[in-house]
Each structure stands twice: as structure tokens, then as C-alpha cells.
């Protein structure tokens, strides 16, 4: 059942569940951040509306800098503005920032310890028709490996809104990963959010008197970003098959909430990670690094398996790259079968 403490959208399993692009939550969050703090500035590389920064730019014209199609400049100019006390938010497509300007982010923002919030929109293969050049499926790895960098992948527009505002009080540079397409609204305004805190969204009931077919918790699904909804659908379907599970939204990939992940791994004895990203180096790798040391259990990884993306609709691509509900269900069954 949905974790009541998470205060999730009660329509999350309904076919008419509201949808909204995660990037829109960033745009609205940035506008709000701009109202809360007059040191907030926005910089964009010719993708102002696409990354939803136009909401801020229209309201705060003198605090918005258009740098043109120049992502290296986007990062380095923001570093300089931070040095003067500003709180710069920079946005582009994740493929270009942090894709193209990775070294500038490393040297002038992370190593230089200048707080800049980097919003990488259109991340994942769910960008769809634009094709493989525009589908950033390496960005979590790129940013996670960088000392001094916080990495957040919100699961819906509401969480993206909260995460964007939360960066104001976070001490280090932050990377926020955003998706283009509309995806279901999972959380509500009342869902708690804190950077660095993983959240249990679903825990199967093991009480038959409550109508559950599951008698025990057999696996934990750790998921982030736009695939959280699919993970919940999989968990519900699994419960119908008598398989109890936990779904953890690991919105902050770094710093890593080891306590929650270890506790869920102990409770279930098996883990499946789900992300719209290369398996190598992504969120699942972070989970594996933690559990290998602290609670070695079988792990299965859902994600892109060493391939580039291609054109197609979001749904076609998620199915093609085996990140859909049936793939998650299969991975859960497989990981349970691997238990000693």
C-alpha cells in the first residue's frame, strides 16, 4: 500500500492521474526561489522556454542572463557570479550541461567551491523523437563522480519544485536532473521533501485481513526520476501476485541516504534499482556501492544497457530499453530467485 506518511497523490494508480513535465516544476520552483531570495540569478543557453526558465526570466528581467548557445560559458559565468554572492541557476539540456561543459563545472564550480545550481533538462531517453544525440543517459554518472556535487533526480513536477527551492539552503553546488515529457504526478504539496533523504513510497501490506495477497516483503525497488510511477505500478501488480515489496524514491542520489537503503535491503533481502540512465555509473551503481559494503544482497539493475538512445515515443523507448513495468516485475522475480 502507499506509505500514508508520504501523503501521495491518491489518484496515482488511476488512469486519469494528472500529468505534468518534471521540468515545469523546476521552472515554477525557480520563480519561487527568485521571490524568496533576491540574490538568485538565472542563466540560460538559448533554451529558456524549453527548460522552463522563462517563468523566472519574465518576472526578473534584470536577474536573467542569456548567454547564447554556449554551455561552457554558461557554467563559467555562473561561477563568477557566485563569487560575487549571487546564487546562480543555470539551465540547458542535460546532454550539453553537464554533458558538454563537464570540465568547466568540475574546475570552476565544484573544485572552486562556488555554489551554482545546474539544471539538466531533457534527461533520459524519454526525450523521445529528438533521438540519441539529445538523450542524456550518462549525466548521473558524470555528476555523481564529482566531489562537492549534490545530485537530485526528482520523480515529478511537484518534487522538482520543492527540490529547486531546497537548493537555496543547501551548501554545495547541485545538479538537478529533469525530464521533458509529461509524467504522472505522484507526490502532493504535503509530501515531505529534504535533500539527502530517500523516501519509502510503497510498502506492501503483509496482513491478509487487509486484503493483501503478500505474506512477506521480498524485495526493495529503489528508483528515481520519471520511472518512479512505473515502479509503483510494478509493486502493485506484484502484490496482486503475492509478492510483497518496498518502493524507495531515491530522489537525492548524492549525498546518499545509506541508512534508508541499508534498512530496506535488510528488511527485504533483495534489491532492484530502476533508472532512466546507463546502468554503468548511475543511481543503481551508487546503491550497489553502498550495499556491497554494508548489506550484500542480490541486486538487479534496470536501466539502459550500454547502448545509445534513438527516436521514438517515450513509451516505445522505455519498453524497447526494457525499463517498463513488466521488466521491473521480471527483475523483482529474478532477484528473489537469486536469494540464497
Amino acid at each position, binding site marked *: 500500500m502507499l506509505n500514508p506518511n508520504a501523503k501521495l497523490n491518491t489518484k496515482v494508480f488511476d488512469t486519469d492521474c494528472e500529468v505534468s513535465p518534471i521540468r515545469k516544476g523546476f521552472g515554477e520552483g525557480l520563480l519561487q526561489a527568485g521571490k524568496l531570495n533576491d540574490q538568485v540569478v538565472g542563466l540560460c543557453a538559448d533554451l529558456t522556454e524549453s527548460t522552463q526558465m522563462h517563468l523566472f526570466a519574465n518576472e526578473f528581467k534584470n536577474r536573467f542572463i542569456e548567454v*547564447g548557445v*554556449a554551455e561552457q560559458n554558461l557554467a563559467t*559565468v*555562473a561561477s*563568477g*557570479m557566485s*563569487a560575487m554572492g549571487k546564487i546562480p541557476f543555470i539551465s540547458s539540456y542535460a546532454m550539453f550541461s553537464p554533458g558538454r561543459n563537464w570540465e568547466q563545472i568540475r574546475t*570552476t564550480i565544484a573544485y572552486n567551491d562556488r555554489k551554482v545550481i545546474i539544471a539538466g533538462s531533457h534527461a533520459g531517453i524519454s526525450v523521445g523523437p529528438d533521438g540519441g544525440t539529445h538523450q542524456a543517459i550518462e549525466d548521473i554518472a558524470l555528476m555523481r563522480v564529482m566531489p562537492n556535487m549534490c545530485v537530485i533526480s526528482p520523480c515529478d513536477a511537484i518534487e522538482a519544485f520543492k527540490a529547486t527551492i531546497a537548493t537555496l539552503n543547501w551548501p554545495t553546488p547541485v545538479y538537478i536532473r529533469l525530464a521533458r515529457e509529461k509524467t504522472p504526478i505522484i507526490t502532493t504539496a504535503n509530501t515531505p521533501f529534504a535533500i539527502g533523504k530517500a523516501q519509502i513510497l510503497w510498502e506492501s501490506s503483509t496482513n491478509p485481513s487487509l486484503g493483501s495477497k503478500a505474506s512477506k516483503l521480498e524485495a526493495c525497488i529503489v528508483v528515481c526520476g520519471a520511472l518512479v510511477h512505473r515502479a509503483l505500478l510494478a509493486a502493485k501488480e506484484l502484490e496482486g501476485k503475492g509478492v510483497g515489496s518496498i518502493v524507495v524514491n531515491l530522489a537525492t542520489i548524492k549525498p546518499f541516504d545509506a541508512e534508508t537503503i541499508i534498512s530496506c535491503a535488510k528488511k527485504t533481502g533483495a534489491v532492484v534499482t530502476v533508472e532512466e540512465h546507463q546502468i554503468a555509473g548511475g543511481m543503481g551503481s551508487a546503491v550497489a556501492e553502498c550495499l556491497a559494503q554494508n548489506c550484500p544482497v542480490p541486486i538487479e539493475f534496470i536501466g539502459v544497457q550500454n547502448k545509445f538512445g534513438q527516436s521514438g515515443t517515450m513509451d516505445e523507448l522505455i519498453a524497447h530499453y526494457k525499463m517498463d513495468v513488466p521488466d521491473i516485475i521480471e527483475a523483482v522475480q529474478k532477484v528473489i530467485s537469486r536469494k540464497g
Partner: protein
Amino acid sequence: MSNSMSDEIIKKLELQANVIRQSIIEMLVTAGSGHTAGPLGMADIFTYLYFHELKHDPKNPTWPERDRLVLSNGHICPVFYATMAHAGYFDIKELQTLRKFGTRLQGHPHREYLPMVENSSGPLGSGLSQAVGMALADRIDHGQKNDRFIYALMSDGELDEGNSWEGIMLAGKNQLGNLIAVVDRNNIQIDGYTENIMPLEPLGAKWEAFNWHVIEVPGHDFTALHEAVQTAKSIFNKPSVIIAKTIPGRGVPEFERDYLWHGKPPNKEEANMALKELRTLGGKIKSEHQ
């Protein structure tokens, strides 16, 4: 600040630069690695800025009103460190720790260890854009009122980097009169002479085409440097670039103009020779006013 300098001041700056050059040689020979040509070539410009022009306070390095100096080509940090030490930011003895384990004087400057530097640098082509960001931030806070200036010190070789031109374009677009770039036009880079590796000329015309005010000066002439900076400060509707024609290795004739001295330190024998040259010439360098 007037547009002229007295002979006395010029003499003082020349002596100071000579002392800084000696420190550079001493640091490099102890370190056993590092760059020689660029630091010697930029000693006069660093001396001019830190001992005459910059609004700064070595006793209060984080003074908010200070001018900002962004060093983009971090590899010339021996001149940066030596100038800062002689200006009173830290003990001159610490210069001997350059590049050693545990030092604050990293092979390329790191802000975490040396908070009085404005930016960590080394990878080329990114310093000017950081200075552009600083100038933009000041414009947001203070409009056209130039109560401080942002200086970006950069090499000619790093103009091969696309990031440099992205910064140049943005500064021109935003008419950043509070920004002054200084290009160390010494014509060398690691692999050879700049015009053979990747031609930059006509360099002044390029900056001008990007809507910058361009001033070309001999880089070892304090009077010319001073005039150039005062002119740059008076141009309020455009960023200014001072293309300073310097001699790499300046002060040690055996090192001068030879690109092979870009990225290596002198050995003991070469250092002794260089120090002898510098000490002998100390106080005898003729300025154009004499």
C-alpha cells in the same frame, strides 16, 4: 589616479619586479617543476597591479570592496604567488613550498588552500568568463556605477579555447565597462610559437570586432601599462582588453623568447646564472623615462 607616474615610482616598481623575478627563479629551482617563461614575462604586470593599481588590502584579503583579479592561465602561478607574498599576503618563506606535498601553493592555484585567490585555475580558457560573471553581478547590483573593476589576466595561447571567445562575446554584448582583460601576448605556447600553432593575428581586430575597446602596449613599460589601465577604466560602455606585448622569460636573456622555457624549471646551474643576471641588473634597468 593620474595618467602619469613619477620616475621615482617607476624605479620602485622596476626594483620590485626584479625582486619578484628572483623569487620566481628560487621557487622553481626548489620545486623542480613548473613554468618559467610566462611568470618572468608577467612580473612587471603583476607588480604594477599589486603594488600600484589594484584596490586591495593584504591584511584584509576578503575586503568586499576590493577589485577582483582573476588569473585564468593558472600555470603562471609562480609570479602570482611571489607577487602576493611580496605584497604581504603571506610569508615570503612559504614560496619555497611551491608544488610540495601539503603546500598551499599548489601547482595550479586552488582557492580552497589559498582563500585570498579569487578562483582555482589551470584548465585554460575559463578565467575570462568567470570575470565576466563577476562583472555582470556587479552590474546587477550597482548598474553603470563602476565602484570596482574586475581584471582578467590571461595568456595568448588560451585564446585557442572556444570558451574564451564565448566570454568575449558575452562581455561585448553586455557592454561591461567594469571589466578589463589583460592578454599576455608573449607569442609562445607549449608546442611552439602561437602563430605556428594556431594563428591569432590580427588579434586586436578580433577583440574589436567583438565590441571591446582594444589597447596594445609594450608589456614591460610601466608608464605605458599605467596609461592603458587608466584609459580602460575610463571607457564605461565597453569592456577593455589590454594586449600586453611581453617577452617570455623577461629578465634572463638566456631564457627570453624561447618557447622551450614555457613549461620547465631551471636546474641549479641555470638558476644560479639567472639569479646572477637579475641581481646584477637590479636597479640598473632603464625605463623609457630615463
